[in-house]
């Protein structure tokens, strides 16, 4: 799939190449990585998806509010227009599944979406019924990815999910956790179960998964979805009290949101980050972080150091 880099994105890439062409001394602040594609591979299959997806925790749970549902559809329209594909949801998220399904129908994006949902029920015998109800709400023939939400009854949920995968009724299987909970158990699952995806919290402020989970994901060929890249907005609220640090300029970050997202998606183990938003301008800004210049490891270190005292 070709990612549509917009005019602004190409200008940014061209700007970086001009700097290099002038022979300017490469410093850690100027060196930037221009990856050949803004798509990240799913290790198990080689399928490539955009590095920035769309979360739906809270933002899409708007109930029967017609105006709010229409707004969610516009967020989705802007998301797909910017090349987005992966949308993540769960039965836990109230009316979010229904709102996503309505949005997909409204804008005709059923073919474009990489549908990632979750099973969140115990006992696990109720899983198939919940998955079918979720699928009906999305209005899709099948999910691309099904994840065991917050590891609830994972021992009982994973075998039937693997059977679904073998039968072609789902393409990928994964597990999720958030805010650093039960990482030991996540590691155990990654080592022992043939999962395709693991979803964990990863942000500038919460880097607990860097030590073991992310390296293990690379070693085991497991794709990583990073949730809460903005810590539900709290991270940006704290950072926005400060000016962007020096390392932001060579990375062409125009906002803290882009700074925070580029930090997350530039980790080599991360496949996709899923920031959530109710605003069209914010989703465009988020998607722009998946294009242009990404930090190399030296710049990532600078990003950590230059924001440490702010957090």
């Amino acid at each position, binding site marked *: 799939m070709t990612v549509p880099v917009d005019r602004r994105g190409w200008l940014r890439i061209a700007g970086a190449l001009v700097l290099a062409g002038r022979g300017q001394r490469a410093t850690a602040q100027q060196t930037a990585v221009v990856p050949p594609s803004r798509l990240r591979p799913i290790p198990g299959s080689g399928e490539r998806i955009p590095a920035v997806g769309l979360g739906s925790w809270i933002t899409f749970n*708007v109930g029967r509010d017609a105006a709010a549902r229409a707004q969610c559809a516009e967020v989705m329209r802007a998301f797909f227009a910017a090349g987005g594909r992966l949308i993540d949801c769960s039965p836990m998220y109230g009316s979010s599944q229904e709102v996503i399904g309505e949005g997909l129908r409204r804008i005709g994006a059923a073919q474009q979406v990489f549908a990632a949902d979750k099973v969140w029920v115990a006992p696990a015998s109720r899983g198939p019924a919940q998955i079918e109800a979720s699928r009906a709400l999305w209005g899709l023939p099948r999910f691309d990815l099904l994840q065991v939400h917050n590891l609830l009854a994972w021992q009982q949920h994973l075998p039937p999910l693997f059977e679904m995968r073998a039968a072609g009724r789902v393409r990928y299987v994964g597990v999720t956790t958030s805010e650093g909970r039960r990482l030991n158990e996540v590691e155990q699952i990654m080592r022992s179960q043939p999962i395709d995806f693991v979803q964990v919290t990863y942000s500038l402020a919460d880097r607990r998964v860097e030590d073991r989970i992310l390296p293990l994901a690379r070693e085991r060929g497991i794709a990583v979805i990073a949730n809460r890249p903005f810590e539900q907005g709290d991270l940006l609220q704290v950072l926005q009290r400060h000016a962007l640090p020096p390392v932001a300029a060579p990375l062409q970050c125009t906002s803290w949101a882009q700074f925070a997202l580029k930090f997350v998606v530039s980790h080599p183990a991360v496949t996709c980050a899923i920031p959530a938003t109710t605003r069209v301008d914010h989703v465009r800004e988020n998607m722009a972080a998946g294009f242009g210049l990404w930090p190399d490891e030296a710049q990532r270190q600078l990003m950590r150091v230059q924001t440490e005292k702010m957090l």
Partner: protein
Amino acid sequence: MTEWWTYRVRSFVLFSARTYERLIEAYNAELWPLQAVVWLAAVAALAWLARGPSAARDRLVLGGLAAAWSAVAWAFEYRRFAAINWAAGYAAMVFAAQAAALLWLALRSRVALRRGARIDRAGLAIAALGVAYPLLAPATGRPWTLAEVVGFMPAPTAIVTLGCLLRAKPARTPLLVVPIATCAFEGALAWALYGGRP
């Protein structure tokens, strides 16, 4: 739920403050001007409670509270709040049970809402706070469209019930559990939606 100590109140709230407010605004708009009628009836009941003993009055007040809990269970929790909060369906069942218990109290028991001068005054003051609850919206800088009225929203209904049941003789302590839990939940919800930010 393992590692329960890592969860905050906010972790359990599935919706934004804006979504919740729009829900209340739409609910109020749909039912207006019923709120004004019910509120005036609540003020009249308060004034009546402040007067001498009356078995008929006490039964009517308890019956009115039963109707209030039924209305909140059906019109708010089940028909509206459950659309964004799956736990509201369970709350509706609990509120319905509270309504049934209050109705039984009104019809079958010999309880009086008159216990002693000091506790009667305290109970009346608490009930008055519940009746005055709609003023919290403009007092906190929010529009009148977000006003919460007894018989329509859980918090004022719980507070008025607490005030009345504190006066109950003999005491009906088990019936205080749901109003107290409701007040605690509403306080936690307000904190999660509007407080606790960096």
